């Protein structure tokens, strides 16, 4: 007779432990920490450049990419402290990768740390990195059905930024539908419209971010 063992262990348990350590690390230093998640090219780095122009070295960024691109260079050039993690094919960042980067440099003067996750709407959603909250970026060129299609992310995102809003006249994107679905998944989600091209919505985003209790 085989023996039945009750296990009840989450597949995320190990990652979650390290994420809790990272969260404590941020708290000790009075840093706020965010996790940016979107499909490839939704505008994460562009928004971080705009934030860097305002926050300078008070902004820290850890950016993940499957292969060497130049996201960290772009963000550093715009004035923030930025480092790149090359994941070599993995589809999401892990808490362990973040921990290494936190310990590898002083991050002096950083008040806001943003982790730019790998461009992917599924895999990064369930890997806690130690952030205080997740921000989903959804560009209007991607289609208004994305929140319904990727509920794991939109359930967890505390803020949803509709990006590239300047392109709205050129695409069939039903803003009301996308936002209605977002609120069905997370009734408290903060919804904002952004354009890094025109600057629309940047003030509102920075304002919300600075006031969000940590």
């Amino acid at each position, binding site marked *: 007779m085989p023996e039945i*063992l*009750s296990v009840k*262990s989450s597949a*995320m348990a*190990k990652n979650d432990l390290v994420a809790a350590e990272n969260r404590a690390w941020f708290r000790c230093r009075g840093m706020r920490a965010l996790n940016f998640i979107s499909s490839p090219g939704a505008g994460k780095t562009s928004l971080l450049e705009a934030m860097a122009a305002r926050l300078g070295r008070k902004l820290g960024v850890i950016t993940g990419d499957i292969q060497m691109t130049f996201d960290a260079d772009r963000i550093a050039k715009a004035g923030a402290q930025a480092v790149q993690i090359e994941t070599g094919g993995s589809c999401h960042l892990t808490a362990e990768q973040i921990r290494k980067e936190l310990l590898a440099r002083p991050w002096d003067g950083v008040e806001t740390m943003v982790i730019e996750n790998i461009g992917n709407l599924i895999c990064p959603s369930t890997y806690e990195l130690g952030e205080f909250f997740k921000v989903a970026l959804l560009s209007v060129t991607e289609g208004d059905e994305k929140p319904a299609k990727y*509920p794991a992310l939109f359930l967890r995102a505390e803020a949803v930024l509709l990006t590239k809003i300047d392109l709205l006249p050129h695409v069939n994107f039903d803003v009301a539908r996308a936002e209605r*679905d977002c609120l069905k*998944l997370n009734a408290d989600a903060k919804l904002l419209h952004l354009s890094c091209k025109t600057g629309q919505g940047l003030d509102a985003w920075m304002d919300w971010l600075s006031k969000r209790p940590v």
Partner: protein
Amino acid sequence: MHEHSVALSIVETALRHAAGRKVESLTIEAGLFSGVFADSLRFYLELLFEEQGQPIPNFHLSSPPARCRCECGSEYPLSVVLDGCPSCGGHRRTLLTGRDCVLVSMEVADA
């Protein structure tokens, strides 16, 4: 694609609990909001057991409805992500289960 790392974590946990005994079956629940697709998970689980030179156990994989508690007080199972509360139609709810992919239990051969 992250089903690979999810599978890795499950296999690690299973082999640790088995402590050298043969694993005969694994019962796994992939929550509605876990972002894990059962077919993809099964593929990687088989691959990993094979890679470890272990016999492939039976996998009982299910995607049960998520348990929700609505602000109106009712508790209900949710299996269509955008559906509202069956009592009041509302969406302001607390998820009691459904976020995680869980190795619930396993069968091991007698030592």
